[in-house]
């Protein structure tokens, strides 16, 4: 149950960091913004590891045994930011969030299947309902918010033209 709450709250943090990152990148550029993010994040993580007494030696010793692809997460994050930089200005605001969510959930089904060998009907139905809800709300948004994809202004988060999560 705690995990459910954590995952939900993570969404709030994603929105917050998106807004802050959008402001930051307006000042210093997208990639420098990412750089600042990772440097600050790295520093904080190091501090947390030191304070909680995690053994760096043991951690580093364990690294060679891990399959190489498992390290690609950080790299994929940068790819996401770079591609969003190109794609977001070109996609009408109302569609960007929706399409990203569809991509995330759809891929999630496949990834869960690859990892666990199961694709429960509840999960598939759930995704369909969620997508339906998102599509419905996007249509509602279409009525109220400007769709101009050439606009450089930061749009309301509910249409989220902000760079997706890192």
């Amino acid at each position, binding site marked *: 149950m705690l995990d*459910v709450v954590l*995952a939900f709250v*993570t*969404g*709030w943090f994603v*929105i917050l*960091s998106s807004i*802050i*990152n959008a402001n*930051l990148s307006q*000042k*210093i*550029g997208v*990639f*420098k913004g*990412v*750089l*600042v*993010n*990772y440097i*600050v*994040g*790295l520093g*904080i*993580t*190091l501090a947390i*590891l030191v304070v909680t007494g995690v053994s760096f030696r043991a951690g580093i010793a364990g690294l060679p045994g*891990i399959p190489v*692809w*498992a*390290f690609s*997460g*950080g*790299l*994929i994050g940068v790819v*996401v930011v770079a*591609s969003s930089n190109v794609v977001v200005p070109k*996609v009408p605001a109302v569609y960007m969030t929706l399409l*990203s969510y569809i*991509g995330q*959930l*759809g891929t*999630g089904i496949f*990834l869960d299947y690859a990892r666990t060998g199961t694709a429960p009907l509840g*999960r598939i139905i*759930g*995704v369909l*309902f*969620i997508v*339906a*809800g*998102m*599509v*419905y*709300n996007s249509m509602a*948004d279409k009525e109220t918010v400007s769709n101009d994809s050439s606009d450089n202004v*930061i749009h*309301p988060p509910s249409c989220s033209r902000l760079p*997706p*999560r890192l």
Partner: protein
Amino acid sequence: MVIIYKTSAIAIGALISVMVTVNGILSGFAGVWFSVLVIHAVGLAAVLIVILAVKRKKVAGKIPLYLFSAGAIGVLVTYFNNVCIPELGTTFTLALCLAGQSLLAVLIDHFGLLGMKRVRFNKKKIIGFLLVAVGLVAMTLF
């Protein structure tokens, strides 16, 4: 022509899904917090390479301190993902996360928080949120 960009938008979503899953799997190998370190180190290396290769925008004036906080928030996001993905699976974790995002987004818009333009909550969207809620419950039931 726009169809290429719309397809790319879906692809970006797919990449995000892969990213959080890979990070979750890494945390199974390296430990929840240590993997956050590794993820940031790899990301830092990747973005340094990009910055060296790509033309830079000049820094304009001073940077207010609060703009550095995104890094801290990102640490929490990564950590929570690493905890939740192995437990709940990718789809459910992302679905919950998206629900949280949508909720906060309409709140920010409705009250015009964080410098965003005030966009009153469109009551029609309650239906959409109900559908999302049903979807989330369906994922837990069967």
